[in-house]
């Protein structure tokens, strides 16, 4: 018998600090599978800002930079501009990317920074114990929306891919999910495409991955996948929101 599935080499062989059933682990793995398949671990620089994934520098075997909260795209810009031949990615959560780091996100996108942004959207601030995120769904109960997100008080969720798809600097904006095997495969393909874009110097690629937070959602991991499927995906439809080069080819 031959091994048909094992841990990718660029994913350090340690147990993560993530809660049981947290799908960060799946996203880490498919990202590392892409890095392995492209053979680029030695030429890759990852940037992880504050959030549950802040300690991802212990999990990815490529060189890693920890960034201040929300600033990963700026840090990645500095790293990429000074090392245009390296692959630079950020791995950011929803609070990080769509609240405190909105300016950095929008402007790195509109500049067309040749980087890959992995945006993990689980509709909550996980690390601080489950507060309202910019992507928290209307009605969703969190620590800071104890009666459910009231849009009269707290406004509406940010749909990041839709928003960024209006910017000319964006090469690829795609939303995927990791609630099922087909979706995980699709997510991996999207990440691969984003890295290929960087290789071909096509500019800014963002892959928004709808993810779970069983602990702060107050659900079992299996129930959390159900919520992802039945509540999150309908509000945040999956798909390619912008693929600049496919559009150009089509023209």
């Amino acid at each position, binding site marked *: 018998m031959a091994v048909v599935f094992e841990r990718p080499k660029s994913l350090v062989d340690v147990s993560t600090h993530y809660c049981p059933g947290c799908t960060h682990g799946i996203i880490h793995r498919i990202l590392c599978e892409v890095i392995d398949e492209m053979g680029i671990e030695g030429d890759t620089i990852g940037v992880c800002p504050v959030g549950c994934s802040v300690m991802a520098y212990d999990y990815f075997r490529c*060189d890693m930079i*920890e*960034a201040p909260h929300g*600033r990963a795209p*700026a840090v990645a810009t500095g790293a990429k501009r000074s090392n245009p031949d390296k692959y630079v990615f950020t791995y950011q959560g929803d609070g990080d990317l769509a609240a405190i780091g909105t*300016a950095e996100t929008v402007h790195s996108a509109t500049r067309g920074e040749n980087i890959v942004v992995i945006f993990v959207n689980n509709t909550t601030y996980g690390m601080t114990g489950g507060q309202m995120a910019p992507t928290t769904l209307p009605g969703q109960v969190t620590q800071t929306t104890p009666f459910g997100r009231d849009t009269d008080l707290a406004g509406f969720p940010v749909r990041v891919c839709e928003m960024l798809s209006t910017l000319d600097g964006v090469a690829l904006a795609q939303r995927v999910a990791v609630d099922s095997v087909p979706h995980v495969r699709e997510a991996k393909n999207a990440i691969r495409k984003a890295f290929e874009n960087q290789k071909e110097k096509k500019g800014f690629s963002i892959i928004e991955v709808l993810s779970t937070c069983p602990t702060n959602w107050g659900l079992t991991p299996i129930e959390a996948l159900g919520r992802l499927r039945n509540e999150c995906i309908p509000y945040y439809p999956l798909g390619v929101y912008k693929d600049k080069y496919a559009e150009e080819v089509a023209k």
Partner: protein
Amino acid sequence: MERNLMKGNEALAEAAIRAGCKCFFGYPITPQTELAAYMAKRMAKAGGVFLQAESEIAAINMVLGASSTGVRAMTSSSSPGVSLKAEGVSYMAGSDLPGVIINVQRGGPGLGGIQPSQADYWQATRAMGHGDFHILVFAPSSVQEMVDMVIKAFDLADEFRMPAMILADGLLGQMMEPVSFPEITAKTIEKPWATNGHKNARKHNIVNSLYLQAPDLQRTVQERFERYEKIKQTHTEAESYLTEDAEIIVTAYGATARVAKSAVNAAREAGLKVGMVRPKTLWPFPVRELNEGCKNAKAVLCVEMSMGQMIDDVKLALNCSLPVHFFGRTGGVIPTPNDVLAEIQKIGGAL
């Protein structure tokens, strides 16, 4: 050596390029904008990167990213913008990253004004962000010193793996003076910690300021402070002027020191034994140099373009051995030599 007439802000930029700065990230703010404009013209030709960031916060974090990969990087701003950079500077200090930050000070607090000021002394030397740390702080007093100190700031930042600041002011930034650029023998400091892709030839590098175990964080900070102690021993600088027989020592830095020097000269002409000690490094503060300069002094006059900030360090350095008087102008008002002379005479009359 060739001498050029240059504006302070532009001289800072040219010196940085010659010191091997490969990345400049900035955001417009008066009175330092010429620096970014100069970089925009020159950097690409010099084989480097110029990028106008979306904010001061983004700019300092771009410096953090570039510096993490081992490249010499710089940002510049003026007082309100430097406040925004505080977050990034703290992270850089916590990650042991070099980098140069220029503050061409203007009046504060808040939006304050756009005239020269020295009201960010405390910020630069005490609280350039949260947490236990220091940055190197250089205080040029002429356009030539702006050149020399930028080069030194890059070298020492790399050597000690910490951010360095040039604390200038609007007067110096806007002033034109002849400068010469020394032949740069840029130090090549190995950076085995840099996150520039491990090429499968070494273990992966991590640039990081997070330590969740308290004893780990304590140890890291303590080690950093041991490094700071070494810098305090070896890298303080001050100019001593007519201190040998001086009974009154004027302390001033930056543009204010030029005014103070005129006042000292005028006081000497009037027969008063007055000298000056001008700190060139504000952190580390030149404690030894100040005490040497004050060996025959009976009183000290600290002159600043603020309500009195460096005076704290002067008092700490002298450790209550001498009375320390203060004269300051703030909000963008520049003291005149006559103002300072009058203060010297007041102190002289009471001796």
